[in-house]
């Protein structure tokens, strides 16, 4: 798809969400943001501005509220969406070091997406896979007992897969 088509598609997705909330007021802000994220995968600046206009709220307020909650992300997810569990068990087993390794390798913070759009990073509260700690998901697929070394290998593997499909 061309850039323009992408934009139109996302605009109409936001429109569809807003159309479901005619005459909504400030207390609908969070549910609307959730629906927009559902529809768009993340909250774009444009979407937040439009939500603000719809609810007659300044964009700074919408952004302030959205950034208060961990559930919202502000960039589109990458081709490979990496979610690292930071629950207690994973923490005890060394997930902090894994997170550092991921941040260093990808040069992004949780909630962000790499410039080439290949990887996005997210941290999750306990995902209930404590037996596999530290646990990590890549596009929903679980990797158990990850270490700084093993995640570097996983990233490498993702890149290879992506190159093959291209």
């Amino acid at each position, binding site marked *: 798809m061309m850039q323009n088509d992408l934009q139109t598609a996302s605009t109409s997705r936001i429109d569809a969400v807003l159309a479901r909330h005619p005459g909504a007021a400030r207390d609908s802000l969070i549910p609307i943001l959730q629906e927009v994220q559902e529809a768009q995968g993340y909250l774009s*600046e444009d979407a*937040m*501005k439009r939500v*603000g206009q719809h609810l007659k709220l*300044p*964009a*700074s*307020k*919408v*952004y*302030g509220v959205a*950034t*208060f*909650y*961990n559930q919202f992300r502000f960039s589109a997810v990458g081709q490979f969406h990496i979610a690292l569990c930071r629950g207690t068990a994973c923490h005890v087993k060394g997930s902090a070091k894994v997170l550092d390794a991921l941040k260093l390798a990808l040069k992004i913070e949780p909630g962000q997406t790499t410039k080439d759009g290949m990887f996005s990073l997210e941290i999750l509260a306990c995902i209930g896979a404590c037996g596999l700690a530290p646990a990590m998901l890549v596009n929903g697929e679980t990797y158990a007992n990850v270490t700084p070394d093993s995640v570097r290998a996983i990233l490498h593997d993702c890149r290879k897969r992506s190159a093959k499909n291209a």
Partner: protein
Amino acid sequence: MSNIEVNGRTIEAQPEDTVLAALRRAGVRIPTLCAMENLLPSGACRLCVVEVEGQRNLVPACAFPVTPGMKIKTHTPRAVKARKTIIELLLADHPDDCLYCARNNNCDLQRLAQEHGVRARRIHGEKIRRPLDASSPSLVRDPDKCVLCGRCVRVCEEVQAVSAIDFVGRGSKTHIGTAFDEGLNVSSCIHCGQCVHVCPTGALTEQSHVEDVIQAIAAGDKHVVVQHAPAVSVTIGEMFGLKSGADVAGVLTAALRRIGFAKVFDTSFAADLTVMEEASELAERLTKGGALPMMTSCSPGWVKFVEQFYPKLIPNLSTCKSPQQMMGAVIKAFYAKQAGIDPHKVFSVSIMPCTAKKFEVSRPEHSRDGVADVDAVLTTRELAQLIKMHGINLKELTPEGADTPFGERSSAGKLFGATGGVMEAALRTAHFLVTGKELDANFKPTAIRGLNGIKEAKVKVGDKELTVAVASGLKNARTVLDQMLSGERHVDFLEVMTCPGGCIAGGGQPLGVPLEAIRERMQALYTIDKEDTLRTAHQNPSIQKLYKDFLGKPLGEKSHHLLHTHYEVRDVA
């Protein structure tokens, strides 16, 4: 009325009082950080905690209502220790930068630490660093010095109805940011600087031009001239231990000459010029038709507010430039020519009570052929710094007369410094222009004077009765505009000042002054007007001469070119 007991002493309290309000009235001082005059308490900082008999925990005085007979202790060791701990926690995540800070010696945080005897860093914690935002032409935001009291957010929303900034993020990542954490320059900020006034620390300061001015004077290859705004001369004395409201125009002129300015102009003269143009524009709109109400355009924060939030009302804005910009244009286009100086060689400085004026000079419409009308803007605060830096004490100087290449001002121009002043000055002249007669004693200007946020009056101009309205503080302006748009309110001529009270309470004025000082500055302006013999712009012989020698007539071709401007719709978040 109900009595309460404070530290063993009985004091009177009003039924609606918070504990803080009752304490303040009785002269009992406790520290506060987040509490703001005239706004509802947020109870966020808990610095104001006191002991109330029967309450197990300390209570925040700013948010706690009085009940008859309640017993309060304000300075028990427990309360004082709680406050001190809060201060220590704030300092744990604060740079130790006082020596390099604009607020050194005038900082609430510093004062609180001092008053509570904080002498050692007891609490160690990670210092969270965030980048400085110097993108705005008017303000600098240093998040490292922010204590997250929320006062700036509240003034921006609840007083100015702008909401350019808000709390962003949560937990240890919480900070004050614009929408999408972009630079303040691309946000909806209208540069009013009211947030600087309420900030207890050096997290918000003006974008300083002091160094540029010093360099320009020192370089010697430029003819450096200066203009000072009507509100400045009734304020600057305060910063040198003179009584607030004292008019020190004479010694200010003397000081500016000593600093090295080649010419000292009075912006009030340009205000007279603004009155001539604006009154003519009003007369034309009334007689020949044009967008009504006409809205004043001398307050640059308000102008940007209309451009971004009420673009449909742009045609209602007067096309007149502000006095600062008119003076700037006339200095470079007329004075320079007369004095035989290349306009490129003139460095034109203005001294303003305003941070938005720094934004105004940067608007591209205010340059002609690559020459800006005004090159640097100093706030009243920066002026004080410049004077002190030169070892000058205003108290020791003898007053000198202003340079008058353009001649004298009328006292109408001086009124521009207070809310309602532009209206009063313009009505005097508009009445004359429409009817050929002076506005007589039948018009009592009291209705449009004073510090009320929204004022209204009826005035007869010829056979028409005009409804004029005056608003200061943009929340009030928004109220008036919304009432106008819904048909609830009819207005023919609307004056808006961005800052509550007008320029005398502008974002560039001294920090931490009581409302009383602002009243006194206002009184000073009206006293000047009362005692003056030349009280209208159109009777000002120097103004008449400038039209005769150079400008032609109001709204004429030259005026159009030099003294009028246009506006743009702005799409901001």
